[in-house]
């Protein structure tokens, strides 16, 4: 038996013994994902147990080095672990911005001390992180951000405001872009700092969205303290890290474009019926759905091709630049079709008959996909300039 087979056996046995039955049920929605933190929100007490057990093996973030709380697994072993978890329907034990965003940035740009300080707490789900990027006057033009960081020797004093800070009301620490220098171009003088949200100088106000949910906040800093040991990269070099992280964020958001389990066409057939030739009875709607499903298929083929090219050592090709733009636009199209197919039932806002407005709320929420993490228009600018080599205006 190969080493990999042995590993599979070990994982299988361990999962059988340690994964609580309740954690083998599919998650019901975003709220069901476990994010950890000092005061974790749980929908089931087993979430804490499951996370602790997985973290003890380094399996909440299995590909990170052991020294930082991971298990140091290579791709093949991670794949086995995922397959074995999928086999029994085990949930991911921990989901967080620490894992998906800050961690990769620290691994790339952080000092050894910073990695040892922060990564293990991310792996164990002890600290929940949020991202302080956008400001009221720095949205698409992120580099014009104005939150000030004043040098006070061993720390900075932070003053200013962030907006669209995801889950700031639930986070313990923030990774934040601040301005340490005003003299050069707007891309210079930006620094990437980490600090504790639990201090008198930090105030958080949730923003209610058109979908009724409040995943984002306004975050105010009034003489908040960020210690210099938590400055990542060099002072004034934060834009490089910001760009690196944005790529991660965009990849994450573009994943929303994946095809749903039951195709829109199948759902529409139930709603509208078919004509004598077996075609969806409404020809206009049928055309829109066919276009959407075709584009979903070709988008999936493109994700696969870019993945295969990267695996073959051909690097991340130009095609990857379209993911954020295309994936989010596709997701909006799908949600509009859900509304068209669902009719009155899709317009419900509250009440059991409307499943508390899931369809409408998802539809409204999808409008933000092509805004957050770089608008579609900014993505098209990037393609035009960096890929096609078209000049600035």
């Amino acid at each position, binding site marked *: 038996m190969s080493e990999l087979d042995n590993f599979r056996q070990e994982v299988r046995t361990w999962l059988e013994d340690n994964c609580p039955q309740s954690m083998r049920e599919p998650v019901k929605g975003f709220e069901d994902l476990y994010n950890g933190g000092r005061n974790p929100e749980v929908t089931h007490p087993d979430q804490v147990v499951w996370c602790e057990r997985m973290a003890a093996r380094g399996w909440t973030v299995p590909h990170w080095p052991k020294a930082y709380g991971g298990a140091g697994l290579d791709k093949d072993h991670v794949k086995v672990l995922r397959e074995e978890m999928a086999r029994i329907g085990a949930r991911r034990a921990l989901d967080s911005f620490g894992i998906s965003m800050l961690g990769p940035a620290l691994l790339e740009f952080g000092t050894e001390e910073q990695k040892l300080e922060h990564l293990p707490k991310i792996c164990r789900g002890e600290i929940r992180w949020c991202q302080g990027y956008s400001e009221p006057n720095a949205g698409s033009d992120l580099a014009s951000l104005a939150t000030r960081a004043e040098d006070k020797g061993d720390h900075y004093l932070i003053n200013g405001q962030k907006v669209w800070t995801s889950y700031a009301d639930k986070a313990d620490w923030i990774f934040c872009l601040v301005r340490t220098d005003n003299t050069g171009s707007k891309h210079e003088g930006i620094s990437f700092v980490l600090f504790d949200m639990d201090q008198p100088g930090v105030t958080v106000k949730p923003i209610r969205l058109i979908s009724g949910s409040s995943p984002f906040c306004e975050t105010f800093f009034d003489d908040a303290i960020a210690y210099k040991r938590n400055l990542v990269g060099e002072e004034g070099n934060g834009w490089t890290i910001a760009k690196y992280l944005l790529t991660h964020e965009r990849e994450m958001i573009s994943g929303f474009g994946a095809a749903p389990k039951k195709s829109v066409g199948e759902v529409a057939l139930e709603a509208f019926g078919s004509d004598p030739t077996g075609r969806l009875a409404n020809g206009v709607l049928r055309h829109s759905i066919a276009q959407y499903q*075709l584009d979903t298929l070709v988008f999936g083929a493109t994700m696969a091709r870019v993945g295969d090219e990267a695996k073959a050592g051909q690097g991340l090709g130009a095609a990857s630049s379209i993911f954020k733009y295309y994936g989010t636009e596709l997701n909006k199209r799908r949600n509009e079709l859900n509304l068209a197919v669902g009719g009155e039932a899709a317009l419900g806002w509250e009440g059991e008959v409307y499943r508390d407005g899931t369809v409408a709320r998802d539809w409204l929420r999808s409008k933000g996909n092509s805004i957050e993490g770089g608008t579609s228009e900014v993505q098209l600018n990037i*393609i035009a300039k960096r890929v096609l080599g078209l000049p600035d205006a």
Partner: protein
Amino acid sequence: MALVLNEEQVMLRDAAAGFLAEKASVAQLRALRDSGSERGFDPAVWRDMVDMGWAGIAIPEEFGGLGYGYTGLGLVLEQTGRHLSASPLQASVLVAATVILHLASDAQKSQWLPAIAAGDALVSLALQEGVHHAPLGTAMTATRDGDAYVLQGSKRLVLDASAANQFVVIARSGGAPGEEAGLSAFLVDANTAGLAIERRSLVDSRGAGALTFDNVRVAESALLGAEGEAWAGLERALDIVNIGLASELLGVACEAFERTVGYLQERKQFGRVIGSFQGLQHRAAQLFAELELSRSIVLQALQAIDAGDDNLAVLASAAKAKLCEVVERATNEAIQMHGGIGMTDEHEIGFFIKRARVAQHSFGDYNYHLDRFARLSGF
């Protein structure tokens, strides 16, 4: 299978690009058109292509080909799209050889496929009758008469009709138009009595034509495969043909797009290059995205042919529909973004939109294939 090209495939693609740029470019197509060429292609260039093995790329080794698969042929077709190279590569190799491969007996394959691979036989498919692709609507009749069949009817959009020496003719030996049963395929010599071949002039300046069959008698041995049972093989062959055409269209769209981006980078108005205007930049960036998607579905569909994928029909209609949509947008934008110069015959960009529309129409356009994609997807 990984969606990447291997080293051999990259070499084949690059060799094709180099050859076609020199020997079969847009300038050569223009010269063929202006000389009023009856044939519509240069036989010396075709001979070179045959000598390089292109006519046998996708034909199995046992039948005199290279057994290199349709992915290889697709890469060459993509390059012919980039250069608008006129040759019987579509008619004889992509279409006729594929139909023969799927319908004929081993003995017939042994007779005809090596001849196609060697460039000795130039075969073309005679399928379309009305102004739209509707294979099940075939009405041309094949009536049994002793040990022969009598063919009666007419065909159009027969590629390279003037140059072909053999035709694969789809006709009804039974059933009614609209039905799958009763369709048969025959191999008919171009010199058979009662067969009239008329050269037709289409916008792409290639050698298409129309055939009229007036009581054409062919021997029983002309029947490819079993009488009345051609549909299954023909449908599969047409899926492959459409994926090949999608490859060609990918080349047409990419070349038209790249030439247009080049123009945006050099044309100046209002004191600056027009490519600096966001109104044009975003349209170009959106087209770039569509072209990347197009490249993915074409490669996936080509690989599916070689892998014998059961899902080929869906992928074929997806690839053809998507490429029809994208090439239409790419060529329309190419003309618009070139402005006045794009409307002149002197400029080459106009040749791309013309070839694109004929290749789009051939064997089913966007409307045909998106409808088929939806039907195959269950709605």
